């Protein structure tokens, strides 16, 4: 087990509310792998959605605040579980660190934001931001996971679903945006059969779920049927929003007709924790998917357009 693997942890709001089982399972897995996860003692909202406005600096201040906190507490690396937090923090961070930033070169942003936050010490741009998945890939070998497995998954067909926020835009992608496979070695190490399905990098509908749940339901239905038709028993996710959209909206799509098979949507950390025989708090309400009709939403794009 590697010595002294310590990382700062930015939870974000969902991990303390709807996604408690994601957090507790992730912490359990990290602990078993010898990773010391230190939650920032002060943190605020990540800013939720990265602003597409290239000029306005207001939407980035929330992120920068968190980065300053991380730096104050002496973390050179911090980790998130929520893909949305990862996306927002990482892209803001890029404004400070990377000359390749798609938006603008670092200097003007760095000065403008730090000037604005004149009461704070200012942010240097030196904190590195990871999603937990990326952290695992960089620091942990799949064999280490394998060594800890006590209840192998025995060929359970798991379809990893990545969504969009970990893969786009290119500058922050943790994997090949068109063919992500970052979860494969870890799930294989647990003894799962990993199912590759073509919609594993499609957007789940994200926060449209607040305004247009029916649009998100259609997407969820397609994504799930795609995984199902490739033979998946369950879908592994890495983002609370994806989890919500895929699981909660199964009911919405199903209420319209009876479907043959329910599709569990489970955080990848939960799958890991269970295979490793770890205890973690789980919120049973999140785990009650109902059935989804495979193939029913096939022509939905045409239908929707009509």
């Amino acid at each position: 087990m590697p010595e002294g693997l310590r990382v700062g942890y930015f939870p974000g709001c969902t991990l303390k509310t709807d996604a408690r089982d994601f957090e507790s399972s992730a912490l359990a897995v990290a602990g078993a792998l010898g990773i010391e996860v230190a939650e920032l003692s002060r943190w605020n909202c990540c800013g939720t959605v990265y602003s597409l406005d290239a000029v306005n600096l207001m939407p980035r201040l929330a992120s920068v605040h968190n980065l300053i906190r991380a730096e104050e507490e002496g973390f050179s690396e911090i980790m998130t579980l929520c893909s949305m937090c990862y996306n927002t923090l990482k892209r803001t961070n890029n404004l400070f660190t990377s000359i390749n930033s798609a938006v603008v070169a670092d200097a003007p942003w760095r000065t403008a934001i730090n000037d604005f936050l004149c009461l704070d010490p200012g942010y240097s741009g030196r904190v590195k931001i990871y999603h937990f998945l990326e952290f695992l890939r960089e620091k942990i070998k799949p064999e280490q996971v394998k060594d800890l497995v006590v209840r192998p998954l025995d060929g359970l067909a798991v379809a990893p679903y990545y969504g969009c926020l970990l893969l786009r835009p290119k500058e922050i992608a943790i994997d090949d945006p068109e063919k992500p496979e970052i979860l494969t070695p870890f799930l294989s190490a647990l003894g799962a059969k990993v199912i590759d399905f073509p919609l594993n990098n499609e957007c789940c509908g994200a926060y449209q779920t607040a305004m247009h749940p029916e649009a998100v339901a259609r997407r969820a239905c397609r994504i799930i049927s795609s995984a199902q038709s490739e033979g998946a028993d369950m879908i592994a996710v890495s983002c609370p929003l994806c989890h919500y959209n895929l699981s909660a909206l199964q009911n919405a799509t199903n209420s319209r007709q009876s479907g043959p098979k329910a599709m569990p949507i489970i955080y990848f950390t939960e799958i890991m924790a269970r295979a490793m025989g770890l205890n973690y708090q789980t919120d049973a309400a999140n785990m009650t998917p109902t059935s989804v009709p495979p193939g029913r939403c096939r022509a939905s794009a045409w239908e929707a357009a009509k």
Partner: protein
Amino acid sequence: MTRLGVFICHCGKNISRTVNIEALRKKVSTLTDVVLAKDYLYMCSKPGQTMIADDIREHRLDGALVAACSPRLHGKTFAQTAQRAGLNPYLLDMANIREHCSWVHIDGAEGTEKAFSIIKGSLGRLHYAEPLEPFQSPVTKRVLVIGGGVAGIQAALDIANSGHEVYLVEKSPSLGGHMAQLGETFPTLDCSSCILTPRMVEVSQNEYVHLFSYAEATRVEGNIGQFQVTVRFKPRYIDETLCTGCGDCVPTCPVVVPNEFDQGLGARKAVYLPFPQAVPAVYTIDWDACLNTDKLIICENCYKSCEARAINFLMEPREITFEVGAIILSTGYELMPVAHIGEYGGDGYEDVIDGLQFERMLSASGPTGGVVRRPSDGRIPQNVVFVQCAGSRDPEHGVPYCSKVCCMYTAKQALLYKHAVPDGQAYVFYIDIRAAGKGHEEFVQKVMSEERILYLRGKVSKIFKSGDKLVVWGADTLSGRQVEIEADLVVLAMAVIPSSGSQKLARTLHIASDLGGFFSEAHPKLGPLESNTDGIFLAGAAQFAKDITDTVSQATGAAGKALSLLANDFIKLEPTVSKVEEGLCRGCGLCASICPFGAVTMSPSEKTGAMVAGINPVLCKGCGLCAAGCLSGAINLRGSSFKQIFAQLEEMV
């Protein structure tokens, strides 16, 4: 020099806008040895040049300075003027007071002062100029053509038909390039091989053509008029002179591999003829696929079946060296691999193919005998989606440019598909249609209106497999709808990119290539046939994506350029090359190691016997690297000697 004349140009308002010409002229006329200073509206015009020539004669000038634009633009013009007036052209210099001065200064006073400083410096430099004479170098009256596609074939035939010898080097086992793979060609729909094959045969029968197939030019040295070329033959393991082309060896060969001529859709044996009309019509053993290794002969079925005894497993690569006066590059193109675009099924869906694969399917001699079939299960596809601009016009995938031929060939392919499968449905996704050639727009319009092919304006975002169908997600930006099509076959019009190995060739030849990797032309408008190295010309898709018509035109143009070079017995080379002062040289050899053109050699001095540097003026490009590197100051670049440069600096600071 004691009698210098200075000629200051207004360049219309280009220079006079920010340089006070009259003040400048007055000030210049007071400088030492300046016997005359004149200005004129357009010095490069006929009256301007006449004035300079007259003044040179009348005032018996022994040096002249034209203060005007960049010498790159009019250096030659004024040098010729000097020569006409009886002054050695290297005793006329130019001071650039336009690009270096008037164009970059807004303030008149500043501009005038800088112009004066530039002229003063140039006069200092001119003071130490020496009269120089151009070198003569003999022209070898033969041409090398690299690449045996339709461009290379056309160029080689044009040169051979004028009675000059030509070497045609093709890296694959047969001539023909991509045109040989095509079915029917737009816009006339004539059969590609029907028009190409006779040309290929003509090449092989022309006594002036030396055809080297399965060979590559590995070394090129020398200079315009005299290039020394080394060609390396890959071993065919079959003696070209003995092989009768009977093909008896093929059935006995146990190894089956994908056929590259069929773009991997068909199969061939390890001993093969790329296609039935191949030229030369001799077989080749693909050593990578053959069971035999360099040490071990495991299988000799072909050897046994060959009555002509042409097979030789011990054949070695061989090299020959020859000299030519000019080179034509026609190495053509490739398609960007489908794997490059992940969202279009980059991980290899069998039924997502590229344009050339579809072309092979349409070809009567192709792997399916001209029947359109899905590679996965051989079924005849009922829904075919064509995707234009797959990779092209897309900086994200590394190709910002338009590939130029795909709008046309997609229309052609959709039409041929409809003719082959009349009840099938063809969809074409396009960004916009670029059909600018003669008869091209008419062709596309006809396809659109008469063939019931659905043209959808929009990009395809994703292609994925669902059961045995391919789902194509796209947008129809005309109706503002998202479109989803279940297709049996998808044909991607992949971006045209330079053929692999062309970068290596560019380095071998010391020529430049552009951002896309295509060979750079000397000038986009006035020098589209020339490379930036004298004597090396460009033809066909190696210069940029183009169709057969444009390829053939450019090939004939390049052949014409090469022939006009061959019409001379000697060519004149610039005398502005490096020169060694033997007495100062200490024989360290640093210069020889610096020179990128191999123009410096070390040999014992005739006078003292000690090692000294010598410069081959034919190879020297006048870059001055050796002069800058020489620790003893023994090397000077003629026309830019240290004396001249220091004098120029001294006058300016």
